[in-house]
């Protein structure tokens, strides 16, 4: 029951200390509840950033399938394809057989903004359609917006099969950019 000294409709007031405590308790409980939900939700959304992912080799063909001196496009699957990714899981590399034993692989992504570079066999150049990047046959920078070689695509030759692993994005921050490894 409201006391006679109180204004109508205000109910029985709690003591100031108790009101302060209950106010702070309510805010603290709300914040903790929001944090519990928020941390889990944000963790799920940013999960791909903190999830470790081992590089996976993909076989792109037997060495003898490639002609000496030719640069050809090889397609292979993403290192972590999801079942519903469809053709999106595919990627490619430019592969060149130098001689009987040596092959090199080059990335398809321009050093500028990652657009797909094309190999012009008669000119011996890689060219980018977006902002006009041009690269020598070893993907060293020749002309274009970003004076840097295209990023490294790691590759290896084992027991007559050529294997490759695609460049993750963003490609510009990858260590060893501009070098290729082969055996």
């Amino acid at each position, binding site marked *: 029951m409201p006391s006679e000294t109180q204004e109508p409709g205000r109910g029985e007031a709690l003591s100031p200390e108790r009101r302060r405590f209950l106010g702070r308790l309510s805010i603290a409980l709300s914040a903790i509840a929001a944090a519990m939900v928020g941390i889990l939700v944000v963790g799920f959304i940013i999960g*791909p950033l903190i999830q470790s*992912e081992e590089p996976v080799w993909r076989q792109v063909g037997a060495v003898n399938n490639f002609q000496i001196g030719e640069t050809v496009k090889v397609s292979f699957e993403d290192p972590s394809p999801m079942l519903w*990714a469809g053709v*999106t899981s595919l990627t490619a590399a430019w592969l060149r057989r130098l001689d009987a034993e040596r092959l090199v692989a080059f990335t398809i992504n321009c050093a500028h903004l990652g657009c797909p570079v*094309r190999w012009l066999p*008669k000119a011996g150049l890689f060219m980018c359609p*977006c902002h006009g990047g041009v690269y020598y046959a070893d993907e060293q920078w020749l002309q274009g917006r970003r004076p840097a070689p295209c990023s490294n695509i790691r590759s290896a030759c084992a027991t007559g099969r050529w294997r490759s692993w*695609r460049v*993750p*994005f963003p490609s510009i921050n990858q260590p060893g950019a501009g070098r290729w490894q082969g055996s």
Partner: protein
Amino acid sequence: MAGFIRKILSDAVDAFEERTGLVKFIGDIARHPVPPDTGWWYVFGSAVLVCFIIQVVTGIALATRYVASSGSAYQVLNYITYKAVLGNLLRGMHFFGASAMILLVGIHMIQVFLMGCYKYPREFNWITGVMLLFLTVAMGFTGQLLRWDQTAVWATVLAAEMLGRTPFIGTYLARFLLGGKTLGGATLSRFLAFHVFFLPAAIFTIVGIHLYLVIHDGISAPPVPGVKVNPKTYRAEYEKLLDERGVPFWPDVAWRDVVVAFGVVATIVALAHFVGPPELGKPPNPSLLANDPSPDWYMLWYYAVLALLPRGMESVFMIAAPLCAVVFLLLVPVLWNKGERHPSRRPWAVAAVLMIVLSIVGFWIEGSKAPWSPKFDAQPLSAALVGTTSPPIVTGAQLFHDKGCEFCHTVDGQGGMRGPDLTDVAHRLSVNDLRIKIANGGGNMPSFAGIVTHDDLDNLVAFLESRPTMTSIPP
């Protein structure tokens, strides 16, 4: 009978009103007094809102068919476009609704800026408007990606590479965008969540605040030269104006908004019907390399900026320029929230708008031509254009195509525009200078020393030397 039905309806409305108070609430808002003579300049805000409603409605309709799977979305888009009943029209409406929204947001912002409507006490409404501008652009970008064709895939890669240039956190930002280290199954779901849930929720919230502030602070009166905004006296002057000459928003002012809204809806439907949605590109297969990625029209100017900036400025510009634009736009009402409102008394404001608009239009025109891109589809010069059977010249013409020269240079009206037109290069450079230029390159020209043989060089020079003579002979 009619009276009986009218009484039942009236009783129902009264009962509803007695329990909710919504009829009075909405009526008070609709009839709130606004300054007189606002005219046609004040219709753009509601036009943007109409576009947003069209986007929500058509977006919900499209979502009833869309499948957010990286492997299926392209087929679903094909189905919606070519087989679903009214699918083509709905896609077109969603596309032109987005285009109209971006265009009208820009016009609304320019009108608010030039008329000084952002000044006291409407600073926060400008700030919420700036947020809505960037959210609208983000909706456009994520929407383009949901088309999930080859252009969408490469636009995603491009965005990831641009984000990757952010100092320290670039890699994390790029992978946040992609949903992993590479483009794949997680990417499209991420864009859908942003386009359909996160960004619209943010827009709904901020539009709510934006409209609340319109009611709270009132629609600004049309600017008058010499009448300055003084925060100390503005409220009283505004109240006096409304008391003496204010008019109810509905229908005295709102009819213009409705007329324009009708025009916007009719235009969007007409464009969707007669022009149709943008063509779907090739499938979203990142291993298909023969393509020419370019953004939708509203980002074309930025595509050109990235191509034309001095090389050293590029990374800084990509990250710093958007941030500076956001900070500057947010600071506009903080720095200039009082004084003159009329554009005739604010020449610097008019000049700034003109400069920005002309720059964007200029970059947009360049972006649509993209002269910096090699013209990969250039065909070898025909025998008629070569104009002779002389072996070195014919061989040189073929080499001009095969070695990629023609992708960047025009000769006899055919070829790319990245480098200068070489039709009359023989008038500008001697034979020796031509040989040096081809071998050494220079400027934007690559060195072809290791790419062409001695004989190739002779033939190429013979071909270029022959052009002024051949082009002067009518075919």
